[in-house]
């Protein structure tokens, strides 16, 4: 689970993106004269040009209204490609996105309500030619994503059955394994912004009035309240939501760059949620999720590796080494089919894990740039 404010950005699976503040005077990429101007007011959204060619495209928005505005670029299927929030009255901002052919919507949302006037923006052309090996990597990754969704769904069904039966011991044993497939492909799953909060919200992620559902709600019942009374419907809902993911996942837009960004995001998840023990605060099964995140990132890297090897052999070599090191370190904590409880992992050991995550995540953050070259 990632904080709600990041979900929209993670949804930009059409291509990589960068959000650039307009205050940067120093040659911000894409901020040159080729930028497409957008003038936002409280009730209008004027786009300077109605069409463009495939590839990197920069929108430069100016807010001439009296309310704080938000610029959203929406894909033909309605998903958010990219957005820029908190554009104050009288200020501006830029978004750079890589767009494939299609008809997009540019929306200005005064008051940041997620709604507002919009204009169409049509993209034509092929964009730059892609390396066929990257297309092959994307195809293989799609297969992997499908397999992981199947895996998590099958195991979630077993888990749900135990919950419905009131079998606490069984459900406890099945909780962490049911999450592994999900954790491996979390950035893709999160690109469907509505599923992630339903299945993976932590209690601390809720707003007042939100209904809490998903794995962690049941986790609390199992480990904290130690009663499965009334949990059956939550278990059924979890399965239902994962079934929705299965029907939709084939439509996810995946590019080589988004794979690379997704790998980096998986390590971000580890760094901010798992190393601190916040992800599975009741069950302390964080290391199982940790392993899932690392495996998913490693899969993306390995599929991209032939191209990376050619373009930046040092990066390929460093990433190979660091993945091996983090896997070796994780292996020290294996116990039975899973991992030791994270509350038994001491401060020095957590520091060691954190250092290794940093050692891997830093070179991993360079992967998207190499793939996008």
């Amino acid at each position, binding site marked *: 689970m990632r904080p709600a404010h990041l979900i929209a950005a993670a949804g930009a699976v059409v291509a*990589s*993106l*960068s959000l*650039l503040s307009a205050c*940067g005077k*120093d*040659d*911000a*990429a*894409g901020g040159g004269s080729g930028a497409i101007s957008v003038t936002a007011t409280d009730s209008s959204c004027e786009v300077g040009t109605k069409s463009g060619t495939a590839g*990197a495209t920069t929108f430069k928005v100016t807010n001439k209204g009296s309310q704080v505005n938000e610029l959203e670029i929406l894909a033909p299927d309605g998903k958010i490609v990219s957005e820029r929030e908190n554009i104050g009255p009288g200020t501006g901002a830029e978004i*750079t996105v890589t767009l494939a052919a299609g008809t997009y919507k540019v929306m200005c949302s005064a008051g940041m309500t997620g709604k507002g006037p919009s204009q169409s923006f049509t993209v034509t052309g092929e964009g730059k030619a892609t390396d066929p090996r990257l297309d092959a990597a994307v195809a293989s990754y799609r297969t992997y994503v499908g397999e992981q969704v199947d895996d998590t769904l099958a195991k979630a069904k077993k888990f749900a059955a135990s919950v419905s039966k009131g079998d606490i011991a069984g459900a406890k044993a099945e909780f962490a394994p049911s999450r592994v497939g999900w954790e491996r492909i979390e950035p893709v799953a999160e690109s469907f912004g509505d599923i992630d909060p339903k299945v993976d919200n932590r209690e601390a992620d809720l707003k007042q009035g939100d209904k809490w559902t998903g794995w962690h709600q049941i986790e609390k019942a199992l480990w904290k309240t130690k009663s499965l009374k009334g949990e059956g419907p939550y278990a059924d809902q979890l399965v239902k939501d994962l079934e929705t993911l299965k029907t939709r996942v084939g439509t996810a837009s995946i590019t080589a*760059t988004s794979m*690379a*960004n997704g790998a980096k995001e998986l390590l971000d998840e580890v760094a901010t949620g798992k190393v601190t023990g916040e992800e599975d605060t009741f069950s302390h099964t964080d290391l199982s999720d940790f392993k899932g995140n690392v495996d998913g990132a490693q899969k993306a890297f390995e599929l991209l590796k032939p191209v990376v090897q050619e373009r*930046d052999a*040092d*990066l390929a070599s*460093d990433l190979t080494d*660091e993945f091996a090191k983090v896997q070796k370190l994780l292996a020290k904590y294996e116990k039975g089919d899973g991992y030791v409880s994270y509350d038994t992992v001491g401060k020095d050991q957590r*520091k060691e894990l954190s*250092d*290794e995550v*940093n*050692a*891997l*995540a*830093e*070179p991993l*953050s*360079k992967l*998207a*740039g*190499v*793939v*996008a*070259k």
Partner: protein
Amino acid sequence: MTEVSRRRLFAYSGVSLAAGAAAGAGLVSVAQAVEQPADDGAVPFFGAHQSGIATPVQDRLHFAAFDVVTDDRDRLIRMLKEWTAAGAALTGGRPYGSAAGGLPESPPDDTGEALGLPPARLTLTVGFGPTLFEKDGKDRFGLKARRPAALADLPHFPGDALDPDRSGGDICVQACADDPQVAVHAIRNLARIGFGVVAVRWSQLGFGKTSSTTPDQQTPRNMFGFKDGTRNISGDDDKALDQHVWASAKDGVPWMAGGSYVVVRRIRMHIETWDRTSLKEQQDTFGRTKGEGNPYGAEHEHDPVPLAKLPADSHVRLAHPDSNGGVRILRRGYSFTDGSDGLGRLDAGLFFIAYQRDPRKQFVALQNRLAGNDHMNQYVQHVGSGVFACPPGPRKGGYWGETLFA
């Protein structure tokens, strides 16, 4: 410099090298290209001695101690080369690589918070701790035999309450600047460059210089409200520096010639207790007045100290070179305040930094005397500690620690 290490530097980053700089010399050419003229507040980076020792003390400190987390000697050397290139850029007031103009798909090379800020006299001073050479009796990186005898582990001093999480480290970096953002930016970027090779073990921010290496300037006050460091070694007193601060080839460790040894101590002050202490007791503790700072029996701050007129257990008397056979150290400490502790007391004190030619004969001798006798011990506690061998300054075309790894 091999082709591999040059590519290492820039292949990740998308930084494009000018054609002329790319030919063979790689990193070095880049380092030279980013050098700044000395008149814009930049302290020269290359030289016989590292900057940040005899350099006039800047206003702010970020000191970081790192553990080396790899066993790969070549990777460690590669990082030191990259640190050197970064150090040359940052001390020159430039970002390391691209801060905002690189590939949109990549994170910027430089984190950017120092963009537009002047060099602020930033200095970066690197040192190597005993555990870089050997740990638990085992040789590391083939360096055990090269460990200087002067880099001995510090002994336990009476009253020490050292926190292992604030002590030791394989490598230290002292970043000093007149702007705290510049100092923090430097440590942050070096830490980032180092991921996978080093990991931050602990770090300390300091805000008010407590010693001056420029005697004609106003002597700063420490958190006790007293002038301190009055009789420090002046940064332009070459004779005293050669005698007390710079290691010499004659000392038996050729790779340290032109280097120096630094001892750092996080000295927590019992602020609330001190503040309730009478003026007389405070002044007796130092052996000097609080206002002017003159030693007892003398009229002005910088007058010769009539030692016999000072209380026998006063700090100035005990620490004075004349009480210690002429032993002197170059102090460069900073005050620190890390908010409050869990009991509502100010977590404040002195981050003591002292450079010297041989800690065994200088800091250890002095501290043994002070720890056993100094009246000030009632009001302070040493809670963190480190000792590091700071190699000579990097030469143009070389790197931090080159003489050690050669």
